[in-house]
């Protein structure tokens, strides 16, 4: 397959019209190309084995009635009936039809979209601010850069559990601060103290149970965790911007604000796009934050939780594969949009 890229035999070099500049390939060049293919072959093989094969398998299984531990999911016609035995077979688009008509899956889709859009937007803005701050010169900068990564280093399951504890309505520290501590604290401020204290709620808030608070709470925890990652990627982008252009623009009388919008941001765009792609894809597959904080609750279900439930509780490999393929398609679409943006940028 790889050799097809090599043009016709060397003895008759073909010079195409319009491509006069193309020099005939020497046998040395041909050998070099062969070596190049040889060198990338292991990577191609690995990608094929660990990425393409499972993907193809998921797509194939999504059109079957496969079970995870059994060969197939059969219609039992009621509880208490023994397995009659069945064959794994292709069921066409039945799994996709089920999912697209399933309220829970649709809810899960919109929850995932809401989560992704909100968390990535907030993380980008905050990450940018953090990156700009730690990119400037100040004492203990190295220490701060390290410290800022701590949330990112804590496993999500652990940090979600901690946050769930802190957001608890009965004994969580967040409610204790809001209801008991902060009003007392601001009360000491002369003149405005009384008014400020009134801002805080009188009753503890069930952050994890109130529908209007659930998603914002999960997003807050995700933002806390992944802003450092965003900041780090953006910082890398900031550091390749040469310092002298700022000097030059300062001499020309540009304000800091103009510098940011007209120099920093455009030059940061490639790094920003990479960061956005990473975070969006990650956020779209969100499982742990939401599962740890809310369990299987239908209000907060995401597509990944739906797929996990279908597989682990339902044993339905076919249907899970269909859900996974839909998640894959959504992510693929997002990547396409982002890479288009990058291309437009390059053009």
């Amino acid at each position: 397959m790889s050799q097809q890229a090599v043009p016709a035999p060397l003895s008759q070099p073909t010079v195409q019209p319009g491509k006069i500049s193309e020099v005939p390939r020497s046998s040395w060049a041909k050998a070099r190309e062969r070596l190049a293919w040889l060198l990338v072959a292991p990577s191609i093989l690995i990608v094929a084995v660990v990425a393409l094969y499972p993907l193809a398998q998921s797509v194939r299984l999504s059109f079957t009635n496969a079970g995870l531990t059994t060969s197939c999911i059969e219609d039992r016609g009621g509880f208490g009936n023994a397995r009659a035995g069945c064959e794994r077979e292709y069921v066409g688009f039945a799994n996709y039809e089920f999912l697209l008509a399933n309220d829970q899956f649709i809810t899960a889709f919109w929850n995932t979209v809401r989560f992704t859009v909100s968390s990535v937007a907030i993380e980008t803005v905050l990450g940018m601010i953090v990156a700009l701050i730690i990119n400037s010169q100040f004492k203990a900068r190295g220490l701060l850069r390290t410290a800022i990564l701590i949330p990112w280093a804590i496993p999500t399951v652990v940090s979600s559990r901690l946050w769930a504890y802190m957001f608890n309505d009965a004994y969580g520290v967040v409610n204790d601060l809001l209801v008991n501590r902060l009003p007392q604290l601001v009360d000491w401020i002369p003149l405005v103290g009384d008014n400020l204290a009134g801002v805080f709620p009188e009753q503890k808030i069930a952050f994890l149970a109130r529908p209007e608070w659930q998603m914002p709470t999960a997003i807050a925890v995700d933002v806390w965790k992944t802003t450092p990652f965003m900041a780090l990627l953006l910082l890398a982008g900031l550091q390749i911007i040469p310092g002298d252009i700022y000097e030059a623009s300062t001499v020309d009388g540009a304000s800091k604000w103009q510098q940011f919008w007209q120099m920093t941001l455009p030059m940061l765009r490639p790094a920003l796009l990479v960061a956005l792609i990473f975070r969006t894809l990650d956020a779209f597959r969100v499982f742990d934050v939401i599962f740890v904080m809310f369990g299987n609750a239908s209000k907060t279900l995401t597509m990944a939780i739906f797929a996990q439930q279908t597989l682990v509780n339902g044993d339905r490999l076919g249907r899970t594969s269909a859900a996974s393929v839909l998640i894959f398609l959504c992510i693929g679409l997002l990547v396409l949009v982002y890479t288009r943006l990058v291309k437009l940028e390059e053009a």
Partner: protein
Amino acid sequence: MQGKNSTNATRLVADYVSGRLTRREMIRKAVAAGVSVPAIAAILAGASPRRAFAQDATPIPDPDAASTLVVPSGLRTDLSGSSITAVLADPTDPNGPFLEGAIAKFTEATGIAVEFQRGERTADARLQAYRQQFAGQSADIDVYQIDVIWPGVVAEHAVNLAEPLADLAAQHFEAIVQNNTVEDVLVGIPWFTDAGLLYFRTDLLEKHGVTAPTTWDELTTSAQAIQDAERADNPDFYGYAFQGRAYEGLTCNGLEWQVSNGGGFIVESDGTVSINNPQAIEAFDRARSWVGTIAPEGVTTYAEQETLNLWTAGNLAFARNWPYMFAASQEAPAVAGKVDVSPLPMGTGDAARNADTLGGWQLMVSKYSENQEPAIEFIKFMCSPEFQTAFAAEQSMLPTIAAVYDAQEVAEASEFIPRLKDVFQGGAVARPSSVTGDLYPEVSQAYSQQLNQVLTGDKDGATAAADMEAEISAIAGG
């Protein structure tokens, strides 16, 4: 000859302790080398191997562990020399030394060597691991420890114990034995058990002149009265807490509410989906009325841990939890010595009864085992009244044999355990896992998700019951 034997034994012990040999290989080699069975048992009891992983699981040898265990009579000795592998407990269970000690006694009595492996920490992960073993028809593991909701899931991979262990099964609580029976196949023998209990604060009941509630309505009134009075001093005080998060624990709670109200078992033993009935709906709406009144609003996200946190801080008058919370209460200064338990309250209506959802674990023999006879012998030992007496007295694990609750040794070790006999005899309710079989996890998920929506106020009980009926019926339909 004697000298050669002892050097062999020394080398085997060294290999075993260093982890180069597994228990099973060590025993096989020792038997081949002519080391006597009591000598092997002594080696096993005295030395435990260093494992490559799960270091925290390696028990510290405890000479007292299982010392009160009397080996039951009637164990076969003609299977001497065979060896089996059993998956028991998990790496966080503190009963490792007890099990090692008990197994050594079993090996000493029967000559059957047992390799004791630990299972995965969470039940879900463990079931997945088991399913992989079963899918491969693996003979590596002979005895599996299975959760009370798994008999239907694993039945087709189990040896029917109804005949070989008929006498033993007859001694155990009927509700659990029935739960473990799938289409006349006795999948497993109960090993130890658990059930939902009502916890209450004896000091607060006395202070506010309230008696322990026997109905849910009494509980509601008492919890409200105590909460109103206690809030004056403690704004964080609540009357009642339970497990309202959308997970398996809510299925246990919900089953208690509806069964105690005469609302059926979600799916009846003949396979009928009975969930959509007025008694169940009444029970759901009653539970909904607790949220944000006598129970914290966040109870819809609470599992056992959150209940325990509130309880041990002294911020609850009543709570529903598993038996483990009793021991935890004794270590919490705010509530130590002020805690008592009873069966959960009854509902209203003609069919009202006590209902406490069963937890607990069973032992089963794999159909793919090549050592089924010794494996059955091992279960006969592990599920005997003698074993359960020592297990209860030394490890506070709840027996599944009524007579063990009356045993002198158990009463001396714990005041608490003998009082639970009533719970298991009168109120124990099994989840509909045997009839729904391998579909149970999905049924339970649909049920707890819908019930969680009732608790959060998204749906009323009637709508949820109708939706449950539709969803659960669809699961059965494939």
